[in-house]
């Protein structure tokens, strides 16, 4: 039972932390923040991995696990890369013509590799 009450405490404190972290957000950042938070919600990738790790030889479990892993990673990788693409556009413009190529930003999503 102690592990349950521990888990519930974690849930409570995590929620409080979430409420506190987002205080004032400038409207400019609503879209990127939503996208970034969305990428983080792909943390369920951990559940998928646990499922696969504990599946033993059950191939149906392995298949479901791999499927859910694919969905979760789609969320995580896609989410971080797309957020980075958006935020790259807010970066300081050192020279006006620097990003003449419209997709210049998409070439540097390296931070999103997980």
């Amino acid at each position, binding site marked *: 039972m102690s592990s349950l009450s521990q*888990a519930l405490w*974690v*849930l*409570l404190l*995590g*929620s409080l*932390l*979430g*409420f506190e972290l*987002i205080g004032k957000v400038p*409207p400019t*950042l*609503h*879209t*990127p923040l*939503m*996208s*970034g*938070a*969305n*990428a*983080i*919600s792909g943390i*369920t*990738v951990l*559940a*998928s*991995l646990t499922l*696969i790790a*504990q*599946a*033993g030889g*059950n191939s*149906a479990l*392995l298949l*479901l*696990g*791999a499927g*859910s892993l*694919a*969905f*979760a990673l*789609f*969320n*995580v*990788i*896609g*989410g*971080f*890369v*797309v*957020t980075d693409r*958006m*935020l790259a556009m*807010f970066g300081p*413009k050192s020279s*006006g013509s620097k*990003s003449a190529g419209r997709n210049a930003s998409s070439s540097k*999503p390296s931070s999103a590799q*997980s």
Partner: protein
Amino acid sequence: MTATSVLSYAIDLVAVLLLALGLKGLSKVRSARSANGLAALAMGLAVVGLLIQQQLSPQAWLWIAAGSAIGGLAGLLTAQRVPMTAMPETVALFNGCGGMASLLVAVAVALFQSGGAAAPDGALEGAADLVSLISIVISVFVGAITFSGSVVAMGKLQGWIATPAWTQSSLRHAVNITLAVTALVAGVLLIGDPAGLPLWLLVGASTLLGIGVTLPIGGADMPVVISLLNSYSGVAAAAAGFVVGSQLLIVAGAMVGAAGLILTQVMCTAMNRSLVSVLFGGALGASATGHVGGGGDEAGYTRITSCSAEECAMALETAERVVFVPGYGLAVAQAQHTLRELAKLLEANGAEVSYAIHPVAGRMPGHMNVLLAEADVPYEQLIEMDSINPEFPRTDVVIVLGANDVVNPDAKSDPTSPLFGMPVLEVDQARQVFVVKRSLGAGYAGIKNALFELPQTAMVFGDAKAVLAGLVGELRELGVGKKPAAV
């Protein structure tokens, strides 16, 4: 406690810390981009921490590699290819898949927890207990709603799905309540029979419920819905954390769930809508159309002045202060680059150019800033509503590009308007207003715009990009931009 489990605990703690810092940093312009990287790093750490803790068989590695390759590659390609204008629906798609992942985990555990061919070491730790079953129910329920709701939201934003008439009647409440009750009953039954029929009933009812609650909501409110669904996917992840017994998952899911809720509230405030009216009020346009008596039709307008690009260009040539009001129409027409060209020309002519950004310009708060930044518009020229409103009385020419509701003066003056009370850009204070629009069709919210009938307003009909290109051409013909202007 073995050395590896100590190590993975430590990694988990660092990951939680970094995730929290990342989420925090994402709400500040200066730190947002590095914060996103930080959150990505935290996620990577969490995965590594988990992998070193679990004893993985070669077979498991193979499945992990396959799943990662498919999901990761698809995510990467989608994220890189998708146009900036489609950002809201992209976020919805990603979010829906996150919900789907939690759903699949819960279904898998429900199906196989009662042993059978499952894990040799009696794995899926203590899955049989009540808490775990309740977590499975929550994870399936919320995960399915997140998935189907997000897919519907994406379809509506893409224009694939219309709003069926029945969803605007109170019938939908009856349907949704029935579905919710069905899901609840199935959830209770599931606790007695995890792998049987109730599970599939729960999946079906929850999926339909996600569709049922999202379908009636109008496109203008969709960003709020996506943000709320984003919060749900956090809840689904936290529930999945209870299912597999991962505290890191619980804390991260709870964090995103709570933060998503706050963000939803912030967005509602920015759009002057309450969450309750978004969720249960139906499409704004549908009720509004009845309100103004078929207001979206051209027939609704009586005193419209229209003008050509040439006349507009002549007004621009002598203007000293020009403000552009970009809206979603600009984004659809992919005209932001042409707009930048026109602005440069006007600046060369000595005019002071700025862009008035309504908090919900585009389809999501902040969407327009992204689009204009993409076209290299200097950040300083993007002026937020509260700062630019006092400037309109001394503005010579305002050009409204594909924006509608956010410049509707009725929102200030007509208490019977559905928009009343929404903060708007007071462009009617400017000396001259040109509205570039495809036709006199209604805006996103389907409400007639009093601005169009004002004496200082002229409509320039046409596609935003074509009109802007026309203006650039006309101005060049007038000799603008060739000689340095004296101001």
